[in-house]
């Protein structure tokens, strides 16, 4: 479904990604692990076209989307949920969803506000509240719901667990697994290994802009050495 090869990217003058290769197959949940500043966010942003890739290819469903503008990539079926959520603060929850709504894609399984509220019932009661009045967990749910409104086949989640309370974390993991059941492919970046282990099938480990490890989540859990070396656990 997604095939990234030899991706290089710069942020301003600093070289962040060095030849990153990764792939995600249909229906998979793939985790991108690594410490702060390892290049996880930049990888997702480069796929989404928010950071122009300097070198390399991003192939989505057989089509080269390298360096296309974000709105084009979004319409091809990739949804992006940024690390800081970036909820529109002046807009109500419902209006935030409306911004993400797209008439294209996904046939009869099109996302609507009602369907998003089914997935995140907590949001329904907040529909008329302003974005900046939501708590961190609510914002994260809204950010995901808003992206779903564009009917993505591939969801890029940047640090979905960040700043969430343990209890909220558990429900968030359930939400992600439910999205997987709904047939959405997910690529997520994570620092919280525990959380990543719960939701993902496979993992990549990024260190200083390079992929250092690739394998199934089960294998990774057994590789104490890898965990200690790259993730400090």
């Amino acid at each position: 479904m997604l095939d990234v090869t030899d991706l290089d990217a710069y942020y301003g003058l600093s070289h962040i990604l060095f030849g990153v290769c990764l792939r995600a197959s249909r229906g998979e949940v793939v985790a991108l692990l690594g410490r702060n500043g390892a290049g996880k966010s930049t990888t997702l942003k480069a796929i989404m076209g928010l950071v122009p890739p300097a070198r390399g290819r991003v192939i989505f469903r057989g089509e080269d989307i390298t360096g296309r503008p974000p709105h084009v990539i979004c319409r091809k079926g990739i949804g992006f949920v940024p690390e800081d959520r970036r909820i529109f603060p002046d807009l109500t929850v419902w209006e935030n969803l409306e911004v993400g709504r797209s008439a294209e894609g996904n046939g009869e399984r099109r996302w609507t506000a009602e369907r998003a509220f089914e997935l995140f019932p907590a949001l329904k009661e907040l529909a008329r509240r302003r974005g900046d009045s939501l708590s961190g967990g609510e914002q994260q749910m809204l950010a995901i719901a808003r992206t779903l409104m564009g009917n993505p086949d591939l969801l890029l989640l940047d640090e979905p667990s960040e700043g969430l309370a343990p209890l909220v974390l558990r429900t968030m993991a359930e939400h992600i697994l439910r999205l997987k059941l709904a047939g959405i492919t997910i690529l997520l970046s994570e620092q919280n290994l525990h959380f990543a282990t719960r939701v993902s099938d496979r993992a990549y480990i990024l260190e200083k802009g390079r992929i250092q490890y690739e394998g199934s989540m089960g294998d990774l859990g057994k590789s104490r050495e890898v965990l200690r070396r790259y993730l400090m656990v």
Partner: protein
Amino acid sequence: MVETPLLEVRDVWKAFGGVQAVAGVSLTLPRGEVRALIGPNGAGKTTLLNLLTGQLACDGGVVLFKRERISGLPPERIWRRGISRTFQVTATFASLTVLENVQVAILSHQGRSRDLFSRTGRLAREAALDFLKRVGLEDQAENVCASLSFGDLKRLELAIALANEPELLVLDEPTAGMAPQERMDLMALAVTIVRDRAVSVLFTEHDMDVVFAAAERIMVLHQGRVIAEGTPQAVRDDPQVQAIYLGGLA
């Protein structure tokens, strides 16, 4: 007799919209202590530092420095009281040379930043070179800051932060984005420099190796609250910290 703490933070709060970033943090920092502030992304570490150094205003609570209230003061006044800092995203003056970056800070400390007539070239040059030497950048003195490598920029920021001979040094992820060995070196350097003059340090850091090597005490922040504080060993063994911060697999 109990020595008065250098920094005393009493129940500070800060919210952004609906998100409570810092929720009632209190801490006391004795003179000369090196303390790490750790916690997952979004725990409120940077926000707390910004509250201490005046980049943000507290919603509630008080910050005392040497028994005087500094909360509510603008950053430049807090700096003049003796608190200096570095930023998470490296902040230097890109169009100036390395030497000039430090000179500007020293001249500000000397109260000469409004001097309209002197030539800057030789002013505070020796002192600036001295600071550069301490961080190992003297060879780069004449280079434009924009041409420095990432690690060197971090060193330069440290030199700038030292320019006012601070009593408290606040470092926001001083080693982020550096190679592992570089990280240890830089932090070791910072600790050596401050040890000489009994400067207190409060720093945030993600690299646990660096934290455990440099910090005398560690505070763990989660969702804007302090959930643990103690010696590195005590914090490492704290089950709550393991569950929340270290991912529960350690």
